């Protein structure tokens, strides 16, 4: 059924042919989950490059001691915006893009539950991005209060801060609507026979992530709204003179902020949990445990937020509570790593690009996990909070974690999306360049933090000079390596080898690539092989394209 039949949702055409707009209008009015997924992914990549330019400017200034390129005030604007752009503009939309593309396909649904709201969720983002990036041009420049926007410093900022607040509200609305869409789709539109327990793990992790989004994005909205009213409407939420408390901001922000970091990593876990079994030709080890562990991580992520606030002056009991809770939550997270390794063990592995990124993810993300555990120990955190140690930690889990998983998923599913194979040579080059330069950039930062270099400073004492220089060189290498990724994606989209026919998975139609639109009522599932295939979820890969993996 690859021809596009009359679709009742497009009822107001002049003729009764199915008629979809083309050109720009197609992209503006699309309600198709694949189109919207592509829009999210391209938007995310553009924001990634923008945030990357800011990062390179920061690293260029930090290449040597002294102030050479930017003034301290602008430097702080760069660090602030780099964080916001990467978190809200690059990582989160990329995962939503994956969700849009893959979830309906994986559960056998024709599209997302609220297709029009889906369009709206996406198109809010470019508006928010223009506001956010436009804040550089406001009088006084962009906000320079750090991506965490602590009061009272953020209350001092100029108009750029108000634009930022507005942009955060818009992005929050987009995320909440997207999350509602995902929950509704997964809970209501699975094909007959597709029980929750048969869903690919990627769908599970996104289901849980969506609940987290719905729970905490409103909290962020509350925090920045209180900033807005403190700035302009005479409230004193964060001002002691008026009866408020600056630390209140930190509590509200981090109550959002900690679940937020899980929002940014759970979909990555899902992607990696799809890829490792496929390329090991072996089912995911402990699938049931993985589902349970993911849910418990999500719930327990709500009770650790103040480990970002150990130095604010909370009583010892508070420090101890959050230290214990954070250490305990590390356990199920770490255990998942064991599950992945156990999946690989006694498998039959090949190392195409998705597998390279997935294995690289496990290796480097785990290092980030260790440094996180070290940060969780309060007395140690007193020394390393607000230093480059923390910068190293979160870049390990967010870049080597989330970003590498995004790369892995892109290479893994590009053939499905485009019908072509990507260039394996480019993919491998991208992987090796990325992982090597990534480590050159961020590993020395652990030493810098331990030795006493604070974060968010444009100039530093001379003993920090050589590691900073190394980190800058690595950063430029890492940044340039991403152009390889762009080249690989463009080359694949434009054409390339056709991807191999699939077998061994459940299909609702037999043509490939995926047609743009599938029938509203899914046909019965054709189970071509055992139940186990749902666990892998994606196209089975072969290095030699001749046989199904066994």
């Amino acid at each position, binding site marked *: 059924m690859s021809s596009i039949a009359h679709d009742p949702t497009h009822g107001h055409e002049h003729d009764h042919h199915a008629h979809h707009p083309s050109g720009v209008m197609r992209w503006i009015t699309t309600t198709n989950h694949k189109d919207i997924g592509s829009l999210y992914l391209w938007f995310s990549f553009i924001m990634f490059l923008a945030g990357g330019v800011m990062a390179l400017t920061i690293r260029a200034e930090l290449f040597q001691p002294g102030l050479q390129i930017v003034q301290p005030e602008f430097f702080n604007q760069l660090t602030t915006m780099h964080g916001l752009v990467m978190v809200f503009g690059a990582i989160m939309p990329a995962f939503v893009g994956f969700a849009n593309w893959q979830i309906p396909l994986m559960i056998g649904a024709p599209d997302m539950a609220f297709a029009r709201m889906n369009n709206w969720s996406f198109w809010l983002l470019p508006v928010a991005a223009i506001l956010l990036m436009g804040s550089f041009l406001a009088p006084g420049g962009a906000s320079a209060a750090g991506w965490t926007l602590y009061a009272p410093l953020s209350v001092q900022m100029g108009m750029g801060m108000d634009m930022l607040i507005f942009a955060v509200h818009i992005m929050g609305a987009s995320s909440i609507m997207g999350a509602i869409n995902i929950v509704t789709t997964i809970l209501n539109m699975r094909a007959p026979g597709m029980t929750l327990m048969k869903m690919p793990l990627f769908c599970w992790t996104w289901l849980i992530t969506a609940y987290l989004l719905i729970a905490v994005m409103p909290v962020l909205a509350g925090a920045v709204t209180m900033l807005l009213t403190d700035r302009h409407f005479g409230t004193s939420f964060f001002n002691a003179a008026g009866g408020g408390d600056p630390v209140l901001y930190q509590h509200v922000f981090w109550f959002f902020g900690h679940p937020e970091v899980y929002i940014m990593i759970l979909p990555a876990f899902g992607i990696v949990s799809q890829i490792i079994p496929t390329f090991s030709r072996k089912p995911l080890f402990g699938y049931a445990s993985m589902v349970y562990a993911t849910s418990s991580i999500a719930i327990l992520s709500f009770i650790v937020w103040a480990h970002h606030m150990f130095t604010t002056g909370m009583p010892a*009991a508070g420090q*101890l509570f959050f230290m214990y*809770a954070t250490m305990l939550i590390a356990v199920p997270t770490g*255990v998942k790593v064991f599950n992945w390794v156990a999946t690989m063990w006694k498998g039959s592995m090949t190392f195409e690009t998705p597998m390279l990124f997935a294995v690289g993810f496990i290796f480097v993300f785990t290092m980030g996990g260790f440094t996180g555990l070290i940060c969780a120990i309060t007395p140690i955190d007193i020394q390393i909070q607000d230093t480059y140690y923390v910068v190293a930690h979160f870049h390990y889990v967010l870049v080597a974690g989330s970003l590498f998983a995004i790369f892995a998923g892109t290479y893994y599913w590009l053939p499905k999306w485009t019908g072509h194979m990507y260039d394996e040579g480019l993919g491998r080059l991208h992987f090796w360049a990325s992982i090597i330069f990534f480590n050159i950039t961020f590993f020395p930062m652990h030493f810098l933090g331990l030795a006493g270099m604070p974060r968010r400073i444009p100039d530093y004492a001379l003993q920090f000079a050589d590691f900073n220089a190394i980190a800058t060189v690595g950063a430029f290498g890492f940044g340039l390596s991403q152009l390889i990724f762009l080249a690989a994606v463009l080359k694949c989209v434009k054409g390339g080898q056709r991807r191999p026919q699939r077998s061994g998975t459940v299909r609702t139609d037999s043509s490939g690539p995926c047609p743009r639109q599938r029938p509203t009522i899914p046909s019965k599932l054709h189970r071509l092989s055992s139940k186990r295939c749902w666990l892998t979820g994606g196209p089975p890969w072969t290095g030699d394209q001749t046989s199904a993996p066994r």
Partner: protein
Amino acid sequence: MSDGDDTPQRAGFLSTVRAVLWSFAGVRKRRDYNQDASSLNPVHVIIAGIFAAVVFVLSIVLVVRFVVSQ
């Protein structure tokens, strides 16, 4: 959370709690997971989950208070 009025439902309460506790540990046998999947009421699971989280937090608080009072 009702206990139900017939024996299978009573067992359901204990199973719910057991499933939630195992989820806190992050480990589950496939067979038990299938059993859970077919027999558990999701609403009960959510309630049990929240309750268990509260108990978890209170336990840590108790430990902390004990430690601090030393």
